[in-house]
């Protein structure tokens, strides 16, 4: 039996010898790990791989962003790898996709996070492998690994929504008090609270003065949250609110953080056979623009995804050329461990009054407004 042992060990030794010739990442890894920052300053080849990891296709916006990234990066001469998280195991999917992009040697990874607090391990690994990480639309939390953040000014979005809600109600009914309901986004999305706080900065003084009344009394963001930004959850909550609070009262307005939820709220109100309240929105989704033109949804926000994607691609180009990308805010966005340099684009409110001008340059939306 010793014979076998000897042979086995011999076979192992031969295998070991033949395989030590295998490439090890150690030396290369060392170089990129130590010179990571200087390398970013030096730029990288113009045909490098750029990874884009986006959340599941739950809103038109993400689908559009994906298409724009694919085409925009191709036009700029980069190779692109644009991935959406799967519909059920979203977080794990996105983690795996970011790891795969790192493995493929992506120089820049643009991430629209599904859960902004659950990506730090992958983001740090990407960073250590020499990639630059740009948080797109949602700020990635609790990690040193994020280099830049590019988004629309979301507090401003909230303020505009709050103001639009007040204006819309004043147009319909000259004098208050107005009865409203509040909806906010998914609580795992960093932006939900920012929208909500922005809107409340406008609404709170009116609520305090009694000019505006929240019918159900649900003013806490925990109570108003819509899990996963899902239309069905908003519709369900609106159904219950209508049953519990508005069997006799009239609802004047609903603060909705985006268009998908706004339409769900309108569907719910229609289903209950009630008069439509003023409903705000955001994202300029096709169905909502139609709805605004038809006079159902009151407002949306034009955060043209084209501009945001174009700005992100501009950052990628700057990095490729070895320049430091332009940022316009180095104070506001703290992700828990660092203040992330940000580029914020200004949002624009759209109602029936300015819908034609607002989408004049948008090939998909312009025809709808005629």
């Amino acid at each position: 039996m010793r014979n076998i042992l000897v042979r086995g060990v011999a076979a192992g030794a031969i295998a070991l010898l033949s395989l030590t010739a295998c490439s090890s990442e150690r030396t290369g890894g060392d170089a990129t790990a130590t010179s990571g920052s200087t390398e970013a300053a030096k730029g990288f080849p113009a045909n490098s791989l750029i990874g884009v990891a986006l959340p599941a296709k739950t809103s038109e916006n993400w689908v559009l962003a994906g298409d724009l990234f694919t085409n925009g990066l191709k036009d700029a001469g980069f190779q692109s790898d644009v991935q959406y998280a799967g519909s059920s195991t979203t977080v794990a999917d996105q983690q795996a996709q970011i790891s795969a992009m790192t493995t493929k040697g992506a120089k820049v990874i643009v991430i629209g996070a599904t859960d902004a607090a659950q990506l730090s391990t992958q983001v740090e690994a990407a960073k250590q492998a020499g990639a630059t990480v740009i948080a797109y639309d949602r700020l990635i939390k609790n990690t040193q690994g994020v280099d830049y953040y590019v988004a629309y000014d979301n507090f401003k979005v909230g303020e505009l929504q709050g103001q639009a809600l007040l204006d819309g109600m004043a147009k319909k009914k000259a004098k208050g008090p107005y009865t409203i309901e509040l909806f906010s986004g998914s609580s795992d999305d960093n932006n939900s609270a920012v929208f909500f706080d922005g809107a409340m900065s406008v609404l709170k003084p009116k609520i305090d003065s009694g000019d505006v009344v929240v019918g159900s009394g649900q003013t806490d963001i925990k109570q108003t949250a819509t899990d996963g930004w899902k239309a069905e959850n908003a519709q369900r909550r609106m159904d219950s609110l209508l049953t519990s609070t508005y069997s006799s009262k009239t609802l004047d307005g609903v603060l909705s953080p985006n268009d998908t939820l706004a339409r769900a709220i309108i569907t719910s109100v229609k289903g209950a056979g009630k008069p439509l309240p003023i409903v705000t929105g955001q994202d300029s989704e096709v169905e909502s623009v139609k709805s605004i033109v038809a006079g159902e949804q009151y407002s949306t926000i034009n955060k043209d995804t084209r501009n945001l994607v174009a700005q992100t691609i501009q950052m990628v180009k700057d990095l490729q050329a070895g320049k430091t990308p332009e940022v316009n805010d180095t104070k506001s966005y703290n992700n828990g461990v660092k203040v992330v340099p940000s580029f914020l684009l200004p949002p624009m409110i759209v109602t029936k009054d300015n819908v034609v001008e607002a989408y004049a340059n948008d090939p998909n939306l312009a025809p709808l407004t005629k």
Partner: protein
Amino acid sequence: MSRVKELQKSLFGGTTSNARQFGMIFTLVAIVLLFQILTDGLTLNPGNLISLVSQYSYILILAIGMLMVIVAGHIDLSVGSIAAFVGIVVAKVMQEYSVPWFVAILIGLVVGALIGAWQGFWVAYVGVPAFIVTLAGMLLFRGGNQYIGNADTIPVPEGFRTIGAGFLPEVGPNTGYNNLTLLLGLVICVAVVVREWRGRRTRREMQAEVAPMWISVIRIAIPLVVVVFASLQFAGGRVGTSFPISGIILGVLVVIYGFVTRNTAGGRHIYAVGGNARAAELSGVKLKRVNFLVMMNMSVLAALAGMIFVARSAASGPQDGIGWELDAIAAVFVGGAAVSGGLGTISGSIVGGLVMAVLNNGLQLMGVGSDRVQIIKGVVLLLAVAFDAYNKKQGRFSVIDSLMRPFRRDTPTGAESPAEAGQERGKSPVAG
């Protein structure tokens, strides 16, 4: 005896019920090689192997428990919710009471055990079908996760992250590789050699036919090459990364549970219950206790998997665990377990899980979108189980079997069974 037949008998364990499992291993190898070519060598690159292990170890841990549940003739739909519930409890406990992370892990396992006892009680002692009990558990603990966590994402401290995102540390002289990973590889190599040697000794003592020497050499050489290659790859990753801690946890569990299900009376009772519960009970198997322990064990493993995922994600979130039960169940069935219970092995399920993992990873490396990945995984699952069903209908037809049929007559049937006890590819004695 012809060499081909010797190869079949000694290398593959000799019977047709193993054909499927070896089919799976060949499928795994084929898929790995296919993606290695399609991705220009990225699949077997150190960085990718490392992320592959850390991405899927929690699913494979679930598959271990799920295999035992399915072999016993049940199903567990609640694992994802239990994982999420334990994850949020552990994260909360560490955040609010600053409990040290290793105590938090213990708390997590205890919570898992309590949940398991709750589900086991309903299944074993009240007699509610496991499908219903765990469907209820799925809702119950998902709700519990949201109730405790307020649908928030709660970060966990650095120490805790080791179990999900940690690696074997760098120690000893600079060899250009991670020394501990090399050591681990060496230990596995020695274990492979020793096991083969002991297997031969046992056969000799039992007066059984000992396989020819060249068979033993093959049986040692192939795993050695694989292990040496793998340990060099894992040890050769970026500095600071090496074989993931979660992979080691998985490995230890596979060895322990593999031994328990194959070589202990308690383990065999699970197969007996799944094969024919009535007959098992009449033969003295404590049916209720087996069912209780199997369900409880699943929940403990789900708790562990949940904690590993939370550690890897650096936070516990409201979407944790969604769809995990399906991944684990898919791994078990792709790995050759029978839907009717009583059949299946731990190693088979791990291979099944790896097939799905490599498929997923390879497609992602190629940049295939998650929509098409899901379609492909669905088709693979269906085909794997369809193959199983077809086998049954054909009286266990298999490709290898049909090729070997002409040689069948002179098989010394008596010599096979004791010999196989020493082999790993466990088959159920009560396998229908």
